[in-house]
Structures are given as structure tokens and as C-alpha cells.
């Protein structure tokens, strides 16, 4: 299964009236998770988050694709 690049954010049981809301909900949660952290703490949080989510995805082929896209234009 290839890397999903269409919008996927959703929360079970939630009804959305505006199509931008689920993505914005996640984005706010991400920014809020870093509230009051130092730059070093933020960097550590991001590293842990990548590892947690990568394991959840599991499929290494998909992960390689994501790594390649993330690196392009770095």
C-alpha cells in the first residue's frame, strides 16, 4: 500500500461541518504538544513522535517513501 498523500485526518465519532476542521484539530494538537518546551525539548519530542508513528504505520516500504519525500528539497 503506497504512502497516503490525500487528506486523512479524522476522529471517530466526530461530525465535521467544514472540511478543514479535522486537519486543523490535529495541527493544533501538535503545536500544543510543544507548548512551553525549549528548542531541545521540542527536538526530542519530535524524534519520539516520529518513532511512535512510524511503528504504528509499520510498513517499511511506506516509511521509505515518506523518508524520501521528507528529504527532498531539504
Amino acid at each position: 500500500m503506497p504512502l497516503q498523500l490525500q487528506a486523512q485526518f479524522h476522529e471517530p465519532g466526530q461530525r465535521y461541518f467544514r472540511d478543514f476542521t479535522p486537519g486543523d484539530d490535529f495541527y493544533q494538537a501538535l503545536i500544543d504538544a510543544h507548548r512551553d518546551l525549549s528548542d531541545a525539548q521540542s527536538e526530542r519530542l519530535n524524534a519520539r513522535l516520529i518513532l511512535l508513528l512510524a511503528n504504528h504505520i509499520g510498513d517499511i516500504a511506506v516509511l521509505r517513501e515518506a523518508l524520501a519525500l521528507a528529504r527532498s528539497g531539504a
Partner: protein
Amino acid sequence: MPTYAYPEFAYRPPQDLLVGAPQRRPLIVVGAGPVGLAAAIDARLHGLPVLLLDEDATVSLGSRAVCYAKRTLEILDRLGVGEAACQRGVSWNVGRTFLDEQEVYRFDLVAEPGHKRPGMINLQQYHLEDMLVARAQALGVDLRWRYQVVGVQNQADHIALQVQTPDGPLAIEADWLIVADGARSPLRRALGLDTQGHVFMDRFLIADVVMQADYPAERWLWFDPPFHRGQTVLLHKQSDDVWRIDFQLGWDADPEQERQPERVIPRIQAMLGDKRPFTLEWVSIYTFQCRRMKDFRAGRALFVGDAAHQVSPFGARGANSGIQDADDLVWKLALVIQGLAPHSLLDSYSEDRRFAADENILNSTRSTDFITPKSRVSQTFRDAVLHLAREHPFARKLVNSGRLSMPSVLTASRLNTPDTDTFSGDMVPGAPLADAPLLRESRATWLLDEMGGAFTLLLFAPDSSAITPALQAELDALRQQPIAVHSRLITADGSGNSLADVQGLAAQRYDAQHAAVYLIRPDQHVAARWRGLSLAGVPAALARASGQPNP
């Protein structure tokens, strides 16, 4: 030669109000900005006498609130100024977002055809206020310019005002007071009330620039453009060749310095990239905050617009939500003043509009964080979204350069009757009505134009034979009640006196392909709905929607 000449409204001495002072009025509105004017006009449409006080004698200085959203235009239609506003204003639906010089995201406010009004018009606030003042005067609003309220006290059964006029002080009282005196709200302060929220540490320069330019009528926002590196710029087209340009300056900018023409002109020249002539008509530096009052009702005082809540401007949720506040409030206040509903109905105004304010604050705050990130990691994520948005759809959806004003769906309103039947689509209880093209006697019309400002039943049926004599008798009886309920029939074929849903868009949007009944509030929000044509649920739903006490 400026594009606009500010009117000087005539001062009327208070002699008539001093007779037997303090006089008691059913309704006084303080603040003749767009929201106060909208409230006063709506009050007259409900047959209420209204006194409107304003401390100045002219309209908004500068273009200020520029973007009027579709829902607001629908309200302005109901108030009688929608057509004038749309004729004068610049319609737009498309917004484009650029990173450096490349477009990374585009939105379209009206994703589908079959709506009367566009997603947004741009119209300088002073033009809208001119139209609203003219309408208010035509409807008999008692407008008093240069009347400054300097004191206010809530009493058990009325509210007392002390007013300063050029001819001296005036004491006056009202059963009910609508406070529309803006963000700094002297009346809010005088009543000892506060707002909660926060200030954003940033500054923006906004300028009205008169020039010939062929940018399209679209909202353009640039992140990190070559002409204003590391900052954000926003461009809107207004009427009379006046363009609104916003430049992010950062918190450390000196407002006094930055508003000087010598500082502003080079910025605009850099943006235009050429030597065309232009004039600066108005310049302002603003900071922004997201705040609101805890309760929009304080005894006999009802707060609307910026006096009740403020948002950062990304998304145009300020004036739009204020006008929607007035739309929610005035029909409820009319029922209370007419003795047809208890005072507690006004608490539903505060609840529902706090719900809307929170949605506006949430969206404006998120946009502000994206447009002006306040930490290094926030900036990193923001820039990553913009980078990924060049190629990937999911990232484009995350680009938050402003979630433009949309009306709240009041799902939590105590006035709603929960669905007992299953419906698809968005016309849930609490939703503002979706427009649709219809025919009335073979002439083109719009669903929203066919609604009045009263409770209305929208009945959907294949044809008019579905309205039996017994059903017609029930509908006639509903129109005769103290809280009158009118009705409109929408059919596929326009038989009888019904509205013809020739494109089927009304049936689609209301999930009403067979038979359905919707109870609609005076502010064109859904209160209740049922499948079939039974009106059995209507009395209870009407009682609930008008705040009647439980039997």
C-alpha cells in the same frame, strides 16, 4: 482627491427626550456601527420602536471591516440592503496562497453553484454604514448622533443611562439595551464587566491604496514574498479602485514610525514592482487579540459584536459574527418585549453566540498561529506544511492562511428539537438555511428570499396535492397563533401556489426528496424537522424554539 467624502450626520437636540425625563423606552441601542445599525433595522422590521445613540456624527473612518461573508449578505438581504451592498462591493470566492512566488494553496468559498450570494464581497465599512444608516432612517429608527453614553446602571426591571449631548446631559431609561459600542466598549467597562482571552504579539500595517491594478478579485496572501521577506502580505480588492494591503511588521515594529507615508510607500512600491502612481487613503497599525465576555447578557443589557467578543482578523470573523449576533438576538428580544416569551429566551442568545464566538476565536487563533508562528518549532512545522503543500494534497489542506468566516451550526442550542428521523446532509437543527434556486409562478427566485423574518414551516412534497384540506386548515391555524408560524411549500412541479424546485437542489440539500417538514426560526436557522407531512411535532418544537417554560 480622496475616493470618499465622509458625511456629517445632523445633530438633533434632546428636547423631546427631556420632557418628563427620565423617559422609559422599550429598546435602546448604543453604537451605530454595522452591528448596532443591523440590530436597529431588524428591530424596526419586528415593529419595535428603537432609539439608536452614537457618540460620533459620521461613519467608519477608514475601510476597516472589508469582507462580508455569504451568510452576512443573506442577513443584509433580509434587512433590505443586500442588493445595494453587492452592487457596490467586489464579489469574490477564490483565495490564493503563495509561498515566495509560487502558489501553494487555493480555496473557493462557494464550492457549488445554485446560491444567490457569493462567498464574500469586499466593501469598505463606510460604504456599508452609509447604506445601513439610510435604511435605518427610512424605517424610522430614532438615530441620535453626538449622544455619548457616560453612565449605565442595571435595575431590576429596566436599565438607566446617563447621556452627554452637545446641549448638556440627558437621563433616559430602557426596558432593554443592546450594547454595540465596539471593542473597547465603554458600556461594558461601566458595568464592571470584563473579557477573557489573549493578545497576539505581532503588528500589522493596513493601508487603503488607490491605484489602477489588474490583480483579479481574489484574496491573495503571500508567505515570505520577495518584496517583504520573512513576513506575510495580504491583498484585497475593494470598490472605487481602492486596494487593501496588509503587511506583517512583527512585534518590535514602532507603530508611530511605521504609519508614516515615507515608510509605507516603499513597501507598496516593492510589492507592485513598478512605478505606477498610487495614493494612500488611509493607514493604520493594528495588533490583535482573541477575547470574549463570559456572558453576553448582563441583566437588561445585551452585548453584540466587538463589545462582546474580538478576534484576530484572519478569516474576517469580526463584523460578520457581529451582524450574525444581531440576527440571533433581535427576534428573541421582540418576542420578549411583546410578552410572548420569557426573559430566559435571551439567555439562549448568549449561549448560542458564545458558541459561535468560541468557534470564531478557535479558527482565528489557529490561523494567526499559522500566519505568525510564535516559536521556533511552530515556525518549523508551518514552513514544512508550506513546503509539502507544493506537491501533496494533504498538506494543502493544512495551509491555514485564514479560515474565512462561515456561519456556526448551532448544534448545542437549547432551542433545537433533536432529530427523531434520519436525515443526511448539513441541514441539522441549529444549521443556517442552505439557499437553493426555485421558481415562483414561473419566475426565478431563491429559497432564502422566500423566507420572511418569522417562524416558518418549510414543507417539501412531490406536488401540491399532498396538502389536504385538513393539513391546510392546520397550516392556517398556525398562522393565526400569537407566535405566528407561516408556511412555504416546495414541490418538484410548482403546482398550486408552491415554489418549484426545478433543479432539485432544495430537495437534495434538505434531504427531502419525498415529504418533509422543517420548522425554521426567524433568523433562518433550522429548529426542528420531520419526515412526512405530519405537523404533530410542531407545537412542542415551536414552544422549545421560542423558549417557552416547560408545561
